[in-house]
């Protein structure tokens, strides 16, 4: 039972994190009872479970994730989506309309067409098959308006904040609607273009300064400064 790292300490690939008696979390590996880091990130401790919260890396789908994807192809029985990852995602017709039916291609495109942006949920992904999506569920489906933005998927948890504190603050301060995909795609929509811009700036600020303290307050100040400046003019 020895641990070599503190919580939130920076670790690099190959760093020894703990010896016997600890459990493996994510982004670590075990060899001869010793746990090592796999990625550049921050050490995380939960009871006896040791993990690394990565600072960089690309998105890998997980079942249950809400993602924002773009339709890249329409087939006979479903759609192919780009969800900002190494795998092309499949949205079957049955997961879009709730019944299985043979449709002709023109009818499929009348539901979702190439280039459409979709908020979907990952229902299956096991690394041997491509991720499977659904748009059956509250809030899921085609996104009709807004401005999209891509940020690193490792920064999404920070953008959401503890119990959604960060994103709800940005929503409150700007009055914009914000849709977040776990895959790093964010859509911001609102009536005032300037407030949308303020929200987008706030999001990129969160990405840039994700691991600094007191970020929520600084972002709030930043938004207020932008919004007030505009109102004065």
């Amino acid at each position, binding site marked *: 039972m020895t641990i070599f790292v503190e919580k939130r300490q*920076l670790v690099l*690939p*190959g760093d020894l994190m703990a010896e016997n008696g600890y459990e493996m979390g994510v982004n670590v*590996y075990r060899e001869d009872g010793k746990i090592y880091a796999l990625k550049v990130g*921050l050490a995380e401790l939960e009871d006896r479970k040791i993990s690394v919260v990565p600072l*960089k*890396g*690309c998105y890998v789908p997980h079942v249950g994730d809400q993602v924002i994807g773009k339709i890249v192809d329409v087939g006979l029985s479903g759609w192919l989506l780009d969800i900002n990852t*190494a795998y092309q995602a499949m949205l079957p017709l049955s997961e879009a309309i709730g019944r299985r039916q043979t449709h002709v291609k023109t009818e499929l495109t009348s539901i979702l067409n190439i280039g459409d942006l979709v908020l979907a949920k990952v229902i299956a992904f096991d690394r*041997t098959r491509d991720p499977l999506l659904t748009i059956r569920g509250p809030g899921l489906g085609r996104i009709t308006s807004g401005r999209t933005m891509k940020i690193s998927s490792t920064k999404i948890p920070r953008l959401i904040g503890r119990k959604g504190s960060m994103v709800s603050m940005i929503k409150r301060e700007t009055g914009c609607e914000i849709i977040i995909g776990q895959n790093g795609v964010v859509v911001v929509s609102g009536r005032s273009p300037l407030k949308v811009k303020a929200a987008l700036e706030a999001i990129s600020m969160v990405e840039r300064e994700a691991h600094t303290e007191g970020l929520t307050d600084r972002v709030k100040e930043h938004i207020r400064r932008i919004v007030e400046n505009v109102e004065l003019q």
Partner: protein
Amino acid sequence: MSSYNKVEAPKKLIKNGLRVDGRKPEELRPIKMEVGVLDKADGSAYVEHGRNKILVAVYGPREAHPKHIALPDRAALRCRYHMAPFSTEERRSPAPSRRDMELSKVIREALEPSILTQLYPRTTIDVFIEILQSDGGTRCAGITGASLALADAGIPLKDMVAACAVGKVDGKLVLDLNDLEDKYGEADMPIALMPNTGKITLLQMDGDLSTEEFNTAIEMAVEACKKIGQMQRESIRRKYLQGDKIA
């Protein structure tokens, strides 16, 4: 071709115990490393190893193109080692040479044991190593840089890989050969190592070494790789830490 600016073969590579560039036999050249130098790449690094200047970019894991290179059980690692036309004394053709292709292969094989490719089946990880200026030991500096760029891209690594060459000039074992020593010396042996696990991922040799010399040479190179590995770690820490705090 004119021999105007060609360097003549020196009569002796070691004079008064010092090498052609004034180093002691077991001394490394000055090394500089920086990570995250390219915006568009997922991970990148810049390495200066003596007069070698090397830029590395890493992309991935990403969708495999063309599809047939994808592997069903792990990510395909692709590696391109390339020397810029202006990287050598005489202009060299920018087309990949036989040597470039061989080095791409050995570098790929030196990096692969450190990467958990099985986590990303049917994808590729692409590594581009561009030699901007060369002075002997580019494959080693290339491996060192590539491993940094992989870590910067957030790709899961068991350990980072550091590399260094040992060789023999004027009958003496020396560390980290430069171009002259490589050309006119008696042996050159590049080694890549995962410092934490102590596993060797690349071992090549050209020239002659006796068994005893070989054993000492390995020991010297392992020590050197550990030193270089330390520098790799510091360069990543520098990027993320300001003082003790995470920036």
